């Protein structure tokens, strides 16, 4: 009997012999016929990773990527048939991959690409009418709660992450400068776009997402916070799906 456990183990480990009990139809050992399945599994998973992490692939080259992906897929095969989620552990894996230790920001780029993919598949939500914001007096605005679209993602980074990503993916983009950058992903319709967040923007948005009212979120964003730039970014990207005014008695 050829168990699925034995079949599966040898699939991901080419050093293992072909499981017994498999033949070519004439009773001879299956031999390289089994390798068709090995190849199908490895190629399909590698291609799924290449599709999901194009910037990582560009940064290290297709050959290196194929090698790294091959090691990753053997240590972490998918845990779900939804390939749209495959590679959630790839950034952490890259961070610990010694041979690529000299490209310290590689895992950060992978984190951004994962967030782009989550955004692509996130639920749709109708955008709130921005006129509501203008209709509020200052007190009402400070007390307002805002709900952000499910497709909004914030990635904070100790690297110039937005510049590195843009430089990698967009021909002619300027070279990254040495600084830290926070990125927000906005999906105005169907295509997620990474944007550079102004100073304090990430703290502001994180506070809003955690349910803080507008005023508290502004406080959380610190002194250098550029409210105008952050707000116009959110509005242009259709990021705000609800503005609720809960007046509490003093």
């Amino acid at each position, binding site marked *: *009997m050829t168990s*699925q456990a034995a079949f599966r183990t040898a699939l991901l480990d080419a050093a293992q012999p072909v499981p017994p009990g498999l033949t070519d*139809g004439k009773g001879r050992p299956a031999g390289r016929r089994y390798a068709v399945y090995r190849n199908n*599994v490895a190629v*399909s998973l590698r291609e799924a990773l290449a599709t999901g992490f194009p910037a990582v692939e560009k940064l290290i080259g297709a050959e290196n990527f194929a090698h790294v992906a091959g090691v990753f897929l053997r240590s972490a095969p998918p845990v*779900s*048939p939804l390939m749209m989620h495959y590679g959630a552990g790839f950034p952490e894996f890259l961070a610990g991959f010694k041979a690529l230790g000299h490209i310290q920001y590689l895992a950060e780029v992978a984190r951004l690409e994962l967030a782009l993919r989550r955004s692509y598949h996130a639920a*749709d939500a109708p955008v709130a009418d921005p006129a509501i914001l203008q209709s509020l007096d200052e007190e009402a605005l400070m007390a307002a709660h805002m709900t952000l679209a499910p497709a909004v993602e914030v990635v904070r980074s100790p690297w110039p992450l937005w510049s590195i990503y843009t430089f990698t993916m967009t021909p002619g983009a300027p070279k990254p400068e040495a600084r830290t950058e926070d990125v927000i992903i906005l999906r105005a319709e169907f*295509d997620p776009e990474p944007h550079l967040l102004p100073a304090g923007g990430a703290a502001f948005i994180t506070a809003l997402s955690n349910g803080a009212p507008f005023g508290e979120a502004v406080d959380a964003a610190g002194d250098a916070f550029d409210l105008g730039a952050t707000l116009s970014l959110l509005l242009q990207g259709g990021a705000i799906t609800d503005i609720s005014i809960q007046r509490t008695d003093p």
Partner: protein
Amino acid sequence: MFDHNSSLPPLPGVGYKPQHFAQIMEDAGPVGWLEIHAENYMGDGGRPIAQLRALAERFPISVHGVGLSIGGETRLDPDHLARLKHLVGWLSPASFSEHLAWSTHDAHFLNDLLPLPYTDATLQRVADHIDEVQEVLGRRMLLENPSSYLAFAESTWSETDFLAELVKRTGCGLLLDVNNVFVSATNLGYAPQGYIDAFPIDAVGEIHLGGHDEDEDDHGLPLLIDSHGREVADPVWALLEHTLQRTGPRPLLIEWDTDVPEWPVLADEARRADKALARVAA
């Protein structure tokens, strides 16, 4: 217990690829229905779901699962069944189909359709799983014959008898992949026409066609790979003619999943399928 076979029209269909969306919506040519891979439409929203909603307003849709692992040794993944139920629930597709294969073991999904030994034990397990799927989805499903690169020494059933017995036990229908028949027959050394003649033809609710690649085994014998990356081969078209003689017109799908061509190339394949259907209808 469930609707008979499927409500797909006996016309050419194609495996839907997002890059063809605009052209399909503008002029689908001979294409009368579309097939999607269930797992690609299990996200929460965004473009995939929006495109599927738009397509479903214009075309009958066949939902083709590639991740349920119906032949798995362990129980079906209840989360995945629930996702299928959700998709089939809101989409109300004309057909739902899956494979006689396994792909998940020990919670690891291997992203390939892996082969099964045809034994009494496998038969019972697959029949139980089909019962469960049909129960949960509340509809009859179609089961697709695999493409095989090897055989199991322990098998005691022929594939066609195995499939016929599954139909008898579960009431499921069958998806007859003619390219898979040609690939398996070549790889395992039997006559493809004989397979078609032994196939439980009344249960066929849909036919698949796709392209394959050619390789060799350790003994220099042909080893065909079911790659879905090119035009349907001429001997497969010939085997289709033989098949349609038995089945009459059936929903007929062109699958092209890797190195996906421009729309006109795929539409030409669908046109060829349309002519094959017209010949048998006449």
